[in-house]
């Protein structure tokens, strides 16, 4: 854990959400351990912040879904430790931000909530109840210079390339080797909230590389009981070990039997993936 943090806010000075990002960033810099990073200067001259970034974890504040600040960090290959999106927070509070810059109760509430989110990021979670199998055997096939791995058994997949593996009524969810190779270096994992209830095919957070954002489309329905916190410091585990160390979310299943109707088992997914890869030249 690093002691200090660097804050990279959105620079949308012309709009309400951008202005709120700025206000959150300024609040944060009241603390001595926080270094504010100006996106304009960073873009011009990355070396200016090299020292600060090496010493501290990076928190990114996006104003809206255009995600300029995140994209800038991605373009410069900066590892993002944490990020918040002001517009998402406002939406969750049922507050319409609009375009106009203003300082009123609503915007103050959003600023407070964003700060709260940043400060209480270490979500509580209990010990994992998931029993990991000893070793997993894989089948592979190659396409051009790529080699794709699929486990031989005990995993189920949806056609959105997300997997689930079961132990009792607990399960773990992750992405397939295909997704990982498509995205290449994963820089950030945005997990769902512990306690969230979700249905099959709802989204369960996302993972992000400098190339793209990939939404995790849940293969099952259930409740989030844990997220893989080791990915905060090492998101590359999703690349290195997509089916094991790179698991994303641990869930309590609600109706796996029903969900299974729209899932492939390992041999079926292996076939599906071969067809898919042949079709969409990666």
């Amino acid at each position, binding site marked *: 854990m690093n002691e200090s943090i660097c804050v990279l806010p959105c620079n949308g000075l012309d709009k309400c959400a951008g202005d709120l990002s700025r206000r959150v960033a300024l609040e944060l810099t009241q603390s001595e351990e926080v270094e504010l990073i100006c996106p304009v200067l960073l873009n011009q001259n990355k070396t200016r912040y090299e020292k600060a970034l090496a010493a501290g974890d990076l928190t990114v504040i996006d104003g809206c879904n255009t995600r300029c600040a995140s994209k800038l960090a991605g373009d410069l290959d900066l590892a993002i430790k944490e990020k918040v999106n002001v517009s998402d927070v406002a939406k969750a509070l049922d507050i319409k931000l609009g375009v106009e810059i203003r300082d009123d109760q609503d915007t103050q509430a959003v600023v407070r909530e964003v700060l709260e989110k940043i400060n209480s990021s270490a979500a509580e979670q209990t010990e994992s109840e998931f029993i990991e199998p000893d070793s997993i055997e894989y089948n592979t096939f190659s396409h051009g210079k790529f080699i794709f791995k699929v486990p031989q058994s005990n995993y189920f997949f949806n*056609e959105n390339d997300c997997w689930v593996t079961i132990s009792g009524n607990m399960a773990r969810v992750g992405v397939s080797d295909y997704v990982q190779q498509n995205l290449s270096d994963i820089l950030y994992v945005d997990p769902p909230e512990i306690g969230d209830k979700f249905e099959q095919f709802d989204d369960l957070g996302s993972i992000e590389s400098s190339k*793209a954002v990939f*939404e995790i*489309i849940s293969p099952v329905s259930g409740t989030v009981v844990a997220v893989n916190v080791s990915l905060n410091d090492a998101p590359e585990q999703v690349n290195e070990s997509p089916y094991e160390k790179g698991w994303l979310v641990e869930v309590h299943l609600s109706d796996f039997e029903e969900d299974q*109707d*729209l899932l492939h088992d390992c041999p079926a997914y292996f076939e599906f993936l071969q067809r898919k890869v042949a079709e969409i030249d990666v």
Partner: protein
Amino acid sequence: MSESTFMGVERDRIDWSPRIDFTKCNDCMDCVEFCPHQVFEVDENAKPKLKVKNPNNCVVFCRACSKTCGPDAITFPDKPETTKMIKAIRKAEKEAATDE
């Protein structure tokens, strides 16, 4: 290229694709840039410029482009309804197959 089926059901029997609210859309084209499946088309001379040209190229249950849309102009069909429908078609086809 598009997948022609989803879980064994022909893709064109599944109604899943982005719906654009053109009163909100600001022509930023972020969604077009984001989606790798050629779902959208841009016609500079048309109004609106954006068109959902190949709805069946859209990955069933993907909603990713709506997250890139700043003004929140993209929506999707009801997911539980879609799931129900896919299951119903699969069941009907299975039954039809065993009847023969």
